[in-house]
């Protein structure tokens, strides 16, 4: 029976696993605990107890803030979802030329490196503190994520079909549109929905720019120790997150089976 040589066994994937294992071993000091004898369960229950029961009396405030947040998140996700597409195409090694990959990926890396706070401050510096600044800040931030996710998705699938189209003379855009996009459509949709969820969930940016939203509410309730109100906000976020998640699941099923 043919045996794999040592070199054949040592694939890039396995080398990566090994590398990761080494990183984990080096990082073991991070596992240092308090060294004290703690009653974990009791501690957990004491903490969790603060959040119950949720103080539903703040519901109107929360709903207004959620409304503001959703509006800004929807706009930003919309712009980012569109702008990220050509960027991702330019950043995928199986679609665009190498130099273009590198330039685009560098841009996306810079965008992701800047924290959301900086995007917010930048937007405020340019257009002043208002919802528009929130939209601009979140849009950039989201482009950094979606651009990467899209192009990772493009690079992770078999490019056979689009290569076939190129062979018959189709240009890059066409072979992408007809050979690749149909394959990754469900993935792209998942990513956009996740981005919307992320933007709603953690729209701290919106608080930074002074446009209110739930980010600010959460911060305030936390600073003043109103954990029961805090949990009311979380409750509404959970409902939203779950709705988006179920919707995404339904949509993926539909696309793969029926459309």
């Amino acid at each position, binding site marked *: 029976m043919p045996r794999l040589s040592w070199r054949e066994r040592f694939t890039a994937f396995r080398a990566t696993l090994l590398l990761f294992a080494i990183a984990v071993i080096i990082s073991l000091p991070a596992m240092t605990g*308090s*060294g*004290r*004898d*703690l*009653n974990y369960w*009791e*501690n957990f229950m*004491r*903490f969790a107890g603060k959040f119950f029961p949720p103080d539903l*009396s*703040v519901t109107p*405030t929360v709903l207004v803030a959620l409304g503001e947040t959703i509006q800004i998140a929807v706009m930003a996700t919309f712009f980012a979802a569109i702008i990220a597409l050509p960027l991702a195409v330019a950043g995928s090694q199986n679609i665009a030329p190498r130099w273009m990959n590198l330039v685009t990926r560098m841009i996306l890396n810079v965008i992701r490196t800047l924290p959301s*706070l900086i995007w917010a401050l930048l937007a405020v510096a340019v257009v*002043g*503190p208002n919802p528009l600044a929130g939209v601009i800040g979140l849009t950039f931030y989201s482009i950094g994520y979606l651009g990467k996710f899209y192009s990772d998705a493009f690079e992770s699938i078999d490019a056979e079909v689009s290569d076939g189209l190129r062979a018959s003379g189709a240009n890059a855009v066409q072979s992408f549109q007809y050979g690749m996009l149909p394959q990754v459509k469900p993935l792209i949709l998942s990513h956009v929905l996740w981005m919307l969820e992320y933007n709603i969930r953690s729209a701290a940016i919106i608080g*930074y720019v*002074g446009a209110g939203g739930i980010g*600010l509410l959460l*911060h*305030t309730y*936390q*600073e*003043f*120790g109103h954990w029961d109100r805090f949990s009311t906000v979380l409750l509404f976020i959970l409902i939203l997150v779950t709705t988006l998640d179920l919707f995404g699941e339904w949509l993926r099923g539909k696309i793969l089976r029926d459309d």
Partner: protein
Amino acid sequence: EPGAAENAGRPSAASQKLVVALKPDKNPDQMMEERQSLSKYLSEKLGREVEVVIPVSAAVINEGFSNGTVDIGYLSANDLINSKDAELLLVGEINGQTTYKSYWLALKDSPYDSVEDLKGKPIAFASKTSTSGFVIPLWDLKRRNLLGDGNDPEAFFGKGNVFYGTGYLSAVERVLNGQAEAAAVSYYVLDEDKHLSEEQRGRLKKIQEQGDVPTHIIAIRSSIPAAERAALKQALLELNDGANTGLRDRVVTSKLVEAEQEAHLRPLKDALSVLPK
């Protein structure tokens, strides 16, 4: 009782590492640099290992008090009010007092002389959670009967005229670049040279001060036994001795003095009652 130290069968308190948690205050930059010196100082004084941690959120320090993993914490009066398992040990003293003031700042050449003049003008609070940059100024407005029933500052300053920043700096910058007429901040934004340049401070004036704001507090976990508590208090008070004041001033508010918890927190407790939902 969540306190770990007093339970039989657990390691005795003195053999345990002492955990000191500092909430980043006026100068976390220095705080971080002094982390090692502080733990060295305390461990020499106490003859036990000391670890200094700097959690960004005071809620973390309070959780540590509750489960017995934090022994000493440096936090604001507001944070101590939220804490159920810690008590005041010492407080900081500024200019001979255990309180300080909150200021309304405006540009030097502006026509304002008191908050009443700011009616209907765009203004900036430091942030919705700031004590001297929001809670105390709001309380002051309430006492002057300038707020309506909802305690909403927009009732006085006008719809869309109230801005909440992400700290003192962001609020003052709005005044400096003309987007707001005045900003509510802590006294030290104007009186000390931590946040602003000489030139920037030169362009500003105080139009009113309000307070008192309780100074930051060194709190101790309630479940620590009295004897150990006394030793810790002594070690910390010795930071006031000549050779140690440098370290003290870089880490905490300056001079550490004893105070009575209820009395120290009362002004803030009263002020917090005006917060809108």
